[in-house]
Structure formats: C-alpha cells, structure tokens
C-alpha cells in the first residue's frame, strides 16, 4: 500500500478509536441535558469511576480465577463496572439533583461541579493519588491490514460502542420507557399530566448514561493500561464538547460528535502538531458553532419569551 495512504488510514483508525469512547461518554451528557436541561459536570467523574471499577474487577478476576478465557473476564469486568456506575448514577441523581429540582438551573449546575470534586477526592482517598495500572486482561493480538495495525482492544472498542449505540437507539425509539423519555424531554409537565412518572424517567436517564460511561471507562482503562483520578476531567470536557458539537440533547448527535471530535483530534495531532491538538479540536467547535449554533444535529429551538 502507498505509505501516505497507509499513514492516513492508521491515523483515521487512531481517531475513530478514541472518538468511540468520547461518543459513549457524550451520550450521558446529552441524555441528561435532554430531560433536565442540566449539564451534569459529574459525568466525567462517573466515567473515571467506571474505569477504576473495571480495574478492580480485572484485578479480582485475574487473581481469583487465573486462566479463565479473556472474554469471560471481559464480561465480568463490564458487568461489575456497569452495576457500580448505574448505582452511582442513581445515587447522584437522588442526592445532588432531585432535592434541587425546581430551583434555578444554575444551582444544579454548581451541585454537579461539587459532586465532581467529591467523586475525584473519594477515588483519590480510596485508590491513592498514584497512577494505577490496569492488569492485562486481553491477549496481545494484532491484525495487520496491509501495514495498518489494528489491535484487539480497538476491535472491542468498535464492537461494544457501535452495538451499545444501536441498542440505545432501539430503546429510545421502541420501548415504553424510551417513549416516556422522549415525552419528558419535550415537555415534562405535559408528560406528567399524561401519567408519566417524570422522576422515574430522570432516574432511568441517569442510570443509562452512567452505564454507558462505565463501559467507556472500562474500555479507556483497557486501552491505555493506566488510570489516574484526574482522568475524568479531560475526558469529560472532551465528551461534553462532542455533545455540543453534535447538538446537545440529540442522541445521534452525540454519537456523531464524539466520533468526529476523535477523528479531528487524531488528524490534528498526526498531521499538524500534537502540541496544538486541543486547539485544533476546539477551534473547529467554535467555527461550527458560529455557523450552526445548535450543533450538527441539534434542533433550532427558538428562545421562549
């Protein structure tokens, strides 16, 4: 293969990989925004906790049942992390946001920032401030496609992220709960008049978003092999950007936004300069917002007067 093309494809693959993880986190931001018009700044921390739970599960699994096939460990690790984070999501919603329902939007925003500090410091106290290493759960297997290397974890990231996005779309489009969610996001008061439990919908939204973040965190931990209690911050900001990029409140928008942000970053770092990688990604966001203030797929909702 032509080396230039080879390099291009490798960079595209690099960008898509991280983009999938951004997309998984961005979904949580966008879903919560959809129903509450709240930017849940603690979401990046839920993602980080998901990574730490995966790390704990991997440590448990590799020491207790050594020799298990890797996919069993993988399944255990995902389940452990998803359960933990879903519970955490529900607790956060109950303790940090529900008591503030009805108060100005800014109050809940501050509460979410506070929650983010609480989670960061709790993880620092439990796991220590040092970088933690993720045990190797996957075989070091690689695929060589004409000079473009694809690792097993990259394949797993693509497969999990894409199937979860498909499942989420089906859930929102086809199920009763999904319908209730769409109704509540359109007009919470009308929805509750129709007999929809808006609180139930909000709780489900938090649980779902947190579960997706848990998967994202687990994939992140496996891909990079190390975790720090700060990791939720940068990943959270990036995913939030991705959500805005795609149009906040829109589920397909978050998916597209995440993947595009990853690809832009990858090409920015790979072809222009790695020092200016973030500038490149955020610069594009600014340009997009100048021309399409509601993001790629965001609806143009006129301000209510």
């Amino acid at each position, binding site marked *: 293969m032509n080396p230039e093309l080879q390099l291009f494809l490798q*960079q595209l693959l690099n960008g898509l990989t991280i983009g999938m993880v951004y997309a998984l986190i961005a979904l949580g931001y966008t879903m919560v925004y959809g129903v509450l018009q709240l930017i849940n700044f603690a979401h990046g921390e839920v993602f980080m906790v998901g990574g730490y739970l995966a790390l704990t599960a991997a440590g448990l699994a590799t020491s207790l049942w050594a020799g298990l096939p890797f996919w069993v460990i993988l399944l255990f690790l995902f389940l452990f992390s998803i359960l933990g984070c879903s519970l955490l999501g529900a607790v956060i919603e109950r303790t940090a946001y529900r008591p503030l329902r009805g108060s100005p939007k800014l109050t809940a925003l501050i509460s979410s920032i506070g929650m983010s500090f609480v989670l960061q410091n709790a993880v*620092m106290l439990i796991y220590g*401030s*040092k970088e933690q290493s993720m045990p190797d759960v996957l075989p070091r297997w690689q695929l060589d496609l004409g000079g473009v290397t694809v690792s097993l974890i990259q394949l797993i990231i693509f497969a999990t992220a894409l199937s979860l996005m498909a499942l989420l779309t089906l859930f929102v489009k086809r199920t009763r709960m999904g319908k209730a969610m769409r109704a509540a996001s359109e007009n919470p008061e009308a929805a509750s008049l129709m007999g929809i439990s808006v609180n139930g919908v909000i709780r489900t939204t938090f649980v779902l978003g947190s579960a997706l973040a848990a998967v994202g965190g687990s994939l*992140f931990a496996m891909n990079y092999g190390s975790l720090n209690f*700060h990791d939720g911050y*940068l990943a959270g900001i990036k995913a939030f950007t991705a959500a805005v990029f795609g149009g906040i409140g829109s589920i397909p928008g978050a998916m597209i936004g995440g993947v595009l942000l990853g690809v832009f970053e990858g090409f920015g770092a790979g072809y222009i300069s790695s020092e200016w*990688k973030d500038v490149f990604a955020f610069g594009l966001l600014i340009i997009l917002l100048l021309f399409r203030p509601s993001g790629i797929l965001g609806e143009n909702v006129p301000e209510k007067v």
Partner: protein
Amino acid sequence: MHFFLSLILVSFFISPVFAKDDEVVIGLAAPLTGDQAYTGFGVMQGAKMAVEDANIRGPVFGQTKLRFEALDDQHNPTQAVLVANKFIANPDVLGVVGHFNSSCSKAASAIYHEGRMVQVSPASTNPEISRQGFDTFFRVCATDEVQAPAAATFARVDLGATRVAILDDQTTYGRGLADEFRKRFEKLGGQVLRHDGITQGEKDFMPLLTKIKSVDPELVFFGGIYPEMALLLKQAQKIGLKAKWMGGDGIFDVSLAQLAGQDIAEGAYATMLGVDPHEVPGAQDFVTRYEARYGEIGSFSAYGYDAASVLIEAVRRAGKKDREAVLAQMRVLKDFPGILGPVNFDERGDAIGKSVGIFKMENGKFKFIKEVKPQTSS
C-alpha cells in the same frame, strides 16, 4: 451552639500565630495532592525525617527546637506562589525545602528572594531557575545542563544512535531537558528528526507516535515524567515503533515497569540525578529507616533529606531566628556531609559536582550502568 463551634474553629485556625518562642519552622513545599502527589510525599517524608533526626540530637540552638510544616503546591505554579507567600508571612519559618517541580520552584523563587528566605530545592533541575540572580535559591541536585548532555552523549557515543526523535511535555522541566538534550546531540553530529510536544495528563498519543514511526528514528528521547512515559512506551509497542527509549529523572520511578508492562518497559534508559540511594553506602541507614516506616523509598526522598539537612545546618550555625543570618550561613557552607555525598554550592546556588547516573530497565527495575561526572564545576 453554632457560636461555640465557630469559636473552636477560629481558635484552631489562629493557634499557629501564638507559636512558642523556642520554636523555628523548616518549611516544605511539594505537590501533596494532584497528579504528582505520590512523588511529592516521598520528598516530604524524607525532609520530615531530617527534621526529626535533628530534633533527636537536641535543640538547634539555645532552647530552640525545629518544627516541620509542609504545604501543598499541587504541582501548580500559581499555588506555589501562594505557598511561598504563606511561608514568608510566618516569622517562625527560617527556610523552605522546595519546590519539587521546576515550574513551581521558578515561580516561587522571586517571592522567597523578596522575603530573604532560603529556598533549597531537592529536585528542580531546570537551569534557568538559578540564573535569575536570586541569592536565596539553592538546590542539592544536578541541573539539566549536566543531566541532558550526559543523556545525549550516552545516546550518541555509547549507543551509537544517529537519528533520534525528541518529545517533551511542554513543562519548564520537560522542555528544558529536551532542549539541552537536542543541543548536545546535534553538537555530537547526531540528527534530530522531529521534536514534538505533548500535553501532560493526556492519554492518547497514537497519532503522534504513528507520525514518529513514519520517520523511523533509532531512539526517542522524552523530556517528561513517568505516567506519560508509560503510555508512550505502551502505545509505541502497539503501533510497532521499534526505537529505543530514553528519558530523564522524571521517568525514573519504580512504577514505570508496572504501568507500561514489564516486557514493554524493558530496555528503556533513564538518567537520574546521582546514583540509586540503595547503592550509596552513606545513605543505607536512611534507606533502611525510611523503608521500615513508609514502605518503598521514593526516587527523591533522599534529596528531600539532604536538602532539609543542609538547611538545618545553616539554621544551627546562624544561631538565631533571623532569615538573613541563615542565608549568610548557607552561602558559606562547605562540604556539608549529605547522605548522598558532600554538598557544595556555587555562586548561583547550584550543587557542585553532582554526577548523573545512567540506568537501564532490566526485569522491571532500573539498573545502574554508568556514572557521568559533570565536566565543569560551575
């Protein structure tokens, strides 16, 4: 009820103001929370042990005892300046061990200079800090002027590398180290193919490494610290970049092999200020006591101990609670017996004769392979 509670709280906060007359404070400033908290704690515990050892030997002068006070600079220059101001404001503080990171040491050095307070850095290696003309700055470690050229010479002469790529984390420390490496390596006839920056705290370096792979260097030098080094090593392996790796004292950490994977980190080179404290006869007693108390010794714990010991000696010789007197004693101190060897300062406050060790990762541990003496003493 609330009134009493706040009264108790207030008295708790203002109590240090009424410190006893027979007490002077040795300050310590290092990152105690945040991304470098672990290394910071290693320095802090080393310095704390020096203060305790001095107190066991008796009053530092007259009836005066030493008190140890550690403040957290969070590896953040802004916070470092606040910490420095806090130390200056307390008349009991006679000198500060710190800061750890070059960026923090540099930012705080002007404040200490204004307050006429001795600052002894255990680990800030950036050469610029001592060139600002502040007579209050000292350090007990070698600078990157010694460290990076030693690394470059080793890479060019001993390893025979001709084509390298350089990375740095864009911090005062990392960029400084990388620039010094580059200067020497080019002077020795080597070719620098690329020099890129990365962002600290970032995790994904695949695009950059893919680009580096396409220029095919024999060696990659990284000016930065071990968490990023571990990620770089791991991701380089993933994309099949087959170059040797080298870094400075920032990557010298016991957990590098664990984070990157032992087989991946195997063969990486690092320069370290001085030699492994485990291999310095004079440091054995300290290493044993430290490890019995805190577990595995940090890479800079012995430097924390030496920096604090030098400072305490100057306070002892000054014999009074007076910052200028301590500073005057620091400036004339000769051949202080530190646990890592004699401590001498040149007119800029840089440690004289501190050599650099070259280490290679073998079986998950950095193994000492060569000592590089500084070529000139100033």
